[in-house]
């Protein structure tokens, strides 16, 4: 192994000690990464692991809080994306950065339209060069068509053409094949190999492992803002890569949890049969869910596990009635659900703790009290007026019972840390009287201490007779459930029962992942 400093200086692009924080979360911590000319380096990791933040820093959209970006071994700093592009770092972003009303050719050459001798735009050159770029990718498109009128696969091709036409030295691809059919992926890979031979460094971020094993040389794994592993890009490393991506509860933390008598800590009490709390057959939403059957028993903790991006939020929204869906049948606590509407679900005894508490679960400018009582206003207003005294007392009781760290429940909930915000969001449902709860990513953005407390609260809810569906991409949470369904590309691709989890641990679930 060459010494780190030496390697960094021979690299084409590198980051050293880069950290970046956003309000409430540390997106990147002390990242060291270097990529050689002609290397295709893959980056794998869950949503929220820090991949997109790194891309934003390398492409000049953001600056790191600390650490440096190195180009050819020398530190560089980009004030804006244009500066990064001038340094010939081209990026294909996950959210397409195309202008729908401009033509294909205009999009590819935006900002650097070839000029004539007179200084006006040489439209003929723009069009012919654009055509050429697209043909290299194997796409024969009308370069005068407005980009917004193209199917998404073609739009992605234009996005890629835009990046590779810029004479790049470093190419960053963030989920480039998300919408490309098989055949087009081949063409892209041929092009990437050509670029590799020209000594261009390529960073390839994707959820599709088979692709990464094919095209990448190495794969770095990111988790919780850290680069936790780097492996050869080969299918034989799949288990190691998955484990690094998903992490696991350390034995020390398991001991702390003390939730159950078997080795694996438990959220539930093992009720996987009996009365049915929620049952749905053939759930479809027309885009991300393709026919899901699910049965939740009273008192059960049912895990729905899978890598993020497989339909988790859509499943939660469809079950709760927040988004439209079709199904052959849907029963909550024995009663048929007629309309897809959150208020109806709550009336039937179903609640939802969504993935993004800041944007969906809480009103950050409102007080802790007001958030806690938001789904139970009827309980606090006999007659016409709100009994604010009763509200306040209930909020104080919840604060003490859930150990929410806040001096006064009158404070806006936006002031609280992530873990405490999550507890407030949970308190809202505990006080509402619903007996069935769907929780998505229960401990995302929550520190370890609060994590354990939240697990305890869920367990308490179940012991008091509640039933829970935990939709999570964290393997250790899935293992805490009574039963686990695997969600893959909008379908349930398998299920794992308690006995298998107790016997095989992580492997029982990991084996079922793509």
């Amino acid at each position: 192994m060459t010494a780190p400093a030496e390697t960094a200086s021979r690299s084409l692009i590198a980051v050293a000690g880069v950290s970046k924080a956003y309000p409430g979360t540390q997106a990147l911590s002390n990242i060291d990464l270097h990529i050689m000319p002609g290397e295709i380096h893959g980056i794998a990791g869950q949503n929220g692991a820090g991949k997109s933040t790194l891309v934003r820093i390398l492409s000049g959209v953001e600056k790191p809080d600390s650490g440096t970006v190195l180009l050819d071994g020398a530190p560089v700093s980009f004030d804006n994306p244009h500066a990064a592009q001038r340094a010939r770092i081209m990026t294909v972003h996950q959210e397409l950065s195309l202008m729908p009303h401009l033509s294909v050719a205009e999009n590819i050459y935006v900002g650097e339209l070839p000029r004539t001798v007179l200084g006006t735009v040489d439209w003929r050159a723009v069009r012919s060069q654009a055509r050429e770029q697209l043909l290299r990718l194997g796409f024969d498109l009308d370069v005068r068509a407005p980009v917004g009128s193209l199917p998404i696969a073609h739009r992605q091709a234009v996005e890629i053409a835009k990046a590779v036409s810029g004479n790049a030295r470093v190419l960053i691809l963030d989920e480039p094949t998300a919408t490309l059919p098989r055949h087009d992926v081949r063409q892209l890979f041929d092009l990437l190999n050509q670029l590799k031979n020209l000594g261009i460094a390529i960073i390839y971020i994707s959820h599709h492992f088979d692709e990464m094993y094919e095209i990448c040389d190495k794969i770095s794994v990111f988790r919780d803002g850290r680069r936790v592993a780097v492996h050869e890009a080969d299918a034989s490393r799949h288990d190691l890569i998955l484990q690094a991506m998903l992490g696991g509860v350390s034995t020390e933390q398991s001991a702390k949890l003390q939730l159950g008598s078997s080795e694996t800590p438990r959220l539930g009490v093992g009720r996987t049969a009996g009365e049915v709390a929620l049952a749905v057959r053939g759930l479809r939403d027309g885009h991300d869910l393709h026919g899901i059957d699910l049965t939740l028993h009273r008192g059960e903790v049912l895990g729905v596990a899978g890598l993020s991006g497989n339909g988790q939020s859509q499943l939660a929204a469809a079950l709760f009635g927040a988004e439209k869906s079709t199904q052959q049948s849907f029963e909550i606590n024995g009663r048929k659900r007629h309309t897809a509407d959150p208020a109806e679900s709550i009336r039937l005894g179903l609640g939802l703790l969504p993935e993004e508490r800041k944007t969906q679960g809480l009103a950050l400018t409102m007080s802790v009290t007001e958030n806690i009582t938001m789904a139970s206003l009827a309980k606090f207003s006999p007659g016409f007026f709100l009994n604010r005294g009763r509200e306040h007392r209930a909020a104080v009781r919840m604060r003490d019972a859930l150990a929410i760290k806040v001096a006064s429940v009158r404070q806006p909930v936006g002031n609280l840390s992530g873990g405490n915000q999550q507890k407030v969001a949970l308190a809202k449902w505990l006080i509402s009287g619903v007996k069935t709860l769907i929780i998505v990513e229960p401990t995302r953005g929550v520190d370890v201490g609060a994590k354990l407390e939240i697990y305890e609260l869920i367990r308490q809810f179940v012991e008091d007779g509640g039933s829970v569906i935990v939709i999570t991409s964290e393997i250790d949470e899935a293992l805490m459930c009574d039963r686990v369904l695997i969600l893959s590309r909008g379908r349930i691709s398998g299920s794992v029962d308690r006995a298998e989890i107790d016997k095989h641990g992580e492997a029982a679930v990991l084996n079922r992942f793509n």
Partner: protein
Amino acid sequence: MALNTSPVLPPQPQTSRLSAAVNALRTFTSSLGSKGYLFVVGALVLAVGSVLSPYFMTSRNLIAVLITASVVSVLAVGQYLVIVTGGIDLSVGAVAALSSVTVGLALQAGVSWPLALLLALLVAGFVGVFNGLMIVYGGITPFIVTLAMMSIARGVAYILQTGRQVAIDDQGFLSAFTADLGPLPAPVVIAMIVMIVLAVTMSQTRYGRRLFAIGGNPDAARLSGLPIKRDIVGAYFLSSLLAGLGGVMIAAQLTEGSAIIGEGYELNAIAAVVVGGASLFGGTGDPISAVLGGLIIAVILNIMDLLGIQAQPQLIVKGAVILLAVLFTSGVGNKLPGAIRKLVFQKRYTEKGSDLPSEGKEKEKIDVAN
């Protein structure tokens, strides 16, 4: 529940002369209630007025100001309801005009004044419901819907008026809306009733809480089962209804219904709401502050009238007042009190940002496998 129940005490703020002084100022201002600064600004404006003009502090002048302010306040309270949900209602001036023409024509036709009033309010309310439905089910942004309605309502008012003068001479109606009720003129009493009813509604009822929630986070409100579509339509209904009431009040003052009144009243109403401290993004403020804001604006306009300042420069001052108000309540200036507070009271509340996933975990080595 057998959970951690030990109370967490906030760390004590550092004691120093500066923080003690700021603390004292804070206590004084908060003893005036959250509207403390409004009273301070109001007192300031009154002081300036009495200095600049000898006619300002006369009872005749002050009553005139109050009467003007009453109409603005009624519209401002309605506007506040809409703004708190994160929307805006540009049509209120036009609705006031439409309502004044409606009540005038009804009275001319011999309808009894309570019925004429009801008719005007119904027309106004109908406009509001239409606005609300367009916004909620048509998916059109409030600014555009109410801008269009501003034009439509005024057009309808003109058509109804058909160029005539719609004089009002129904004594019952006129005395109901202009006579003194006790020590105060009727318009002032009406404005106060409206203010108190809606203030109580916002702070003490479920409906008010739901409006705050919609402004605070419409997604969270919807996912908590709140009927946000119905409530939003209701807010626009109330805003128009109150605009209709304002139109009737003006008609009584002028003894005529007219399609040209109320020009610019929507701007006055919005200005009153923002001077009162509500954020245009919704979720904050209250009706009383909106009324106080309206009063401050009415006083400023009155001072300018007394000083003989023309209508056009007055527009400049009105615009400047709005800019300053928004600057200090929603914009950059908003950060100033927070920044000062943070400086002095840094650890007063909970510790933010301590949800680093790395806390507590062992430092993990980079695992390189070849």
